């Protein structure tokens, strides 16, 4: 790709040329080149396994490239480890934040780099607080340097990480899916910070699955697929269809396939439900329906679905399943009432990563495998195999450790677990988080297949285009309260956001 020039006369700060990285049996990166100019935001887009993370880890010094060259400010530079990457001004903010919860904002910003008063070599607390204040002011954020990190929201923690990066004079800031845990509003404030940094000449590499953000914040975008570079485009000159096509390698006309499923009678009715995190919520769910729940971080949406699933103790209110009043006190009662939960954090709450696909599929319903205390292993293979085929889990075998599957396939395994348990009401908490575009579309299709077969779905999502396209009805929560209900035909991004801030 020779023509990747940026129109204005900014100088090139980084060039990674013909980078190749081979892992045993896998060519993770195959002759990939990118370049980055001062004061620009370069998006890197690609499905899981496309090589984004490998590329970033090479830049950060966590992996050593097998071949290729890296130039910083025009000079060839060998990155042999994280220390060299740091010394040349490269800072990476990973998806998993590395803040220390017991320390204050200022302490976190200067961790390992405390400001020392010279004669006695003691920590200069006042100076540190002051400098932290200055840094936060540069980013236009209001945050108390003496606040304890553990009390902050995810987005505030991220701000602290960014402050840490720029306190050490970052020339190149890499952000790996920074908005995965952020609400729309928090994303906007993150973008504000990125724009401020940009204007100060920092070059940003922005990795994301979310096309909307790529369009909003990046100047150029490089698309990777299967370890190869597909191309680099100016963001202004591209559109989402084109980018998706480059990522997936096939033409996708519609990101959000919506079929019309006839909606039946009420299967779940929730009256004045109150528990930790939310107050007095009422709604109903009908057969074949996809009910969306929208709200910002802290709106109580996760607490609500956890309560429906028996994982958050209900203080008040009633739940009726198929007209029958039911006290759901534990996840096993929810399971027996044919409710399934695909949780927010699939690795921490949805999967036993060290176990195989088949064990993960059958673990909630192992009682059904033979009547005795023994496991009917042949039956287990058959059942697991059936789901692998039916919902298209791509795995070499049902014995494969789920750890080694892609995010989308892992999510399908979690879903298969509840299908195997015969769940009729399936609650999905951010089902497509950290899942690539191709798998997203498959998950949407799967959800609609389930509805066609008579299941009902409750879906929490903070991705507006997703919830607006997939849900039939949307209820909005804010600060633990119900604020508004929309039929999807009456809903708009602005409307939902407004209701979510009420």
């Amino acid at each position, binding site marked *: 790709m020779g023509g990747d020039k940026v129109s204005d006369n900014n100088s090139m700060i980084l060039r990674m040329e013909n980078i190749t990285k081979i892992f045993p049996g*896998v060519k993770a990166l195959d002759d990939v080149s990118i370049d980055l100019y001062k004061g620009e935001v370069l998006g890197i887009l690609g499905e899981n396994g496309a090589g984004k993370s490998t590329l970033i880890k090479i830049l950060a010094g966590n992996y050593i490239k097998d071949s290729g060259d890296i130039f910083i400010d025009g000079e060839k530079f060998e990155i042999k480890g994280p220390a060299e990457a740091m010394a040349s001004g490269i800072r990476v903010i990973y998806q998993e934040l590395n803040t220390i919860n017991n320390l204050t904002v200022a302490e976190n910003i200067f961790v390992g780099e405390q400001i020392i008063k010279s004669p006695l070599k003691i920590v200069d607390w006042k100076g540190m607080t002051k400098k932290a204040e200055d840094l936060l002011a540069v980013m236009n954020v209001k945050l108390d340097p003496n606040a304890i990190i553990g009390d902050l929201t995810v987005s505030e923690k991220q701000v602290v990480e960014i402050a840490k990066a720029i306190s050490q004079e970052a020339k190149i800031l890499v952000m790996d899916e920074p908005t995965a845990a952020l609400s729309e509003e928090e994303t906007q404030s993150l973008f504000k910070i990125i724009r401020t940094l940009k204007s100060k000449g920092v070059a940003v590499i922005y990795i994301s699955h979310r096309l909307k953000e790529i369009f909003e914040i990046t100047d150029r975008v490089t698309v990777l697929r299967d370890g190869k570079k597909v191309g680099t485009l100016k963001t202004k000159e591209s559109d989402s269809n084109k980018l998706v096509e480059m990522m997936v390698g096939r033409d996708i006309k519609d990101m959000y396939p919506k079929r019309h499923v006839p909606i039946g009678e009420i299967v779940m009715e929730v009256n004045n439900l109150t528990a930790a995190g939310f107050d007095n919520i009422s709604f109903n769910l009908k057969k074949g329906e996809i009910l969306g729940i929208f709200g910002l971080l802290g709106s109580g949406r996760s607490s609500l679905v956890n309560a429906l699933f028996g*994982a958050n103790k209900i203080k008040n209110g009633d739940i009726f399943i198929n007209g029958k009043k039911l006290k759901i006190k534990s996840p*096993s009662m929810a399971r027996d009432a044919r409710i399934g939960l695909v949780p927010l954090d699939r690795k921490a709450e949805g999967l*036993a990563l060290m176990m195989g696909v088949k064990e993960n599929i059958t673990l909630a319903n192992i009682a059904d495998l033979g009547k005795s205390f023994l496991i009917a292993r042949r039956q287990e293979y058959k059942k697991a195999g059936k789901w692998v085929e039916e919902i298209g889990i791509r795995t070499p075998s049902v*014995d*494969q450790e789920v750890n*080694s*599957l892609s995010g989308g396939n892992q999510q399908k395994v979690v879903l298969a677990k509840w299908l195997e348990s015969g769940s009729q009401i399936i609650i999905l908490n951010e089902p497509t988080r950290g899942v690539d575009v191709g798998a997203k579309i498959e998950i949407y299709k799967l959800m609609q297949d389930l509805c066609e077969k008579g299941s009902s779905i409750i879906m929490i999502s903070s991705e507006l285009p997703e919830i607006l396209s997939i849900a039939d009805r949307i209820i909005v929560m804010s600060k633990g309260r119900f604020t508004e209900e929309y039929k999807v035909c009456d809903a708009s991004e602005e409307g939902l956001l407004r209701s979510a801030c009420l």
Partner: protein
Amino acid sequence: MEKAVKKYSGFLNFLRTPTPTLIGIYIVMMLLFSLTSDKFLTIQNIKGIFNNFAVFGILAAGVTVVMIGGGFDLAIGSTAGLAGIVSSVLLMKGIEIPTPYVFIIAILIGCLVGLINGLIITKVGINPIITTLGTLAIFRGVCYFWADLNPRVYNLFVQSIGRIYLGNVFPITTLYIIIAFVVLTLIFKFTRFGRDLFTIGGNETLARLAGIPVDRIKILSYVISGFFAAIAGLLLISQLGSGRPEYGNGAELEVLTIVVLGGVVVGGGRGNYLGVFIALMIIQTITNGMVLLDVPVYLRMVVKGALLVLVIAIDAIRNKRHLQLY
């Protein structure tokens, strides 16, 4: 990149455990000792090695169950001591409760200790290390109530359970260990309890959200550990011919070394009895071989400790390379 993902069969999964490394170390060790000491490869010596690990082996059987479920049990040594001293007191002249009842009482004591540990850990929610560190001290203290009795075990049947050699060579205690390990392996592989235990050790939050009765299974794992500790206590008084309140003192550390060396992951979810068995033989062979070679006691400790760190390090490095793929 799905095509590139490696496929794991049962055998490949086995290769990824530390067990092959252990087998290699064991073979090298056997060669080394048999070349350097002519007393090593004698039937008498091998008999001794096998008989000496009886108590540790039986304790390891139970601790492995607890650890695979993500727990920890430091109370095994004092549980064995308690079951041992109580049984030996009950067998004393003048009391002479029938042997089967003594066995039942000993096992009930073991299971009760396990139940107490399990209840405190799951229902009160105290960290298992702290809980069992506490009960370790409590039950060791209880043992000393009988300290002045110095009960000797004259009951021939009790003496025989830890001392018989099948065909005059193979110690019956090793058979106990093999039976226990095989039965537990089958339980792990083929029962719901086994599967649920591995799920809990692998990801407890997930297990709870999947409706698995987590508390019940964890409590049961401690009861199983207490059960084996009681049997170990009976073997102790059988082999030593008396009951002493300090029996089993410090056994927990030796057993933990064996279990961890055998590839049972601290934190749960992974482990197998083949590895534990080989680790058991390695530790006992080292002790024995170094005695024959006249290696000073402190150096034996150094070697055991170094071996533990070495094997775990090899495992960590192999797993790191595996994980780097993704």
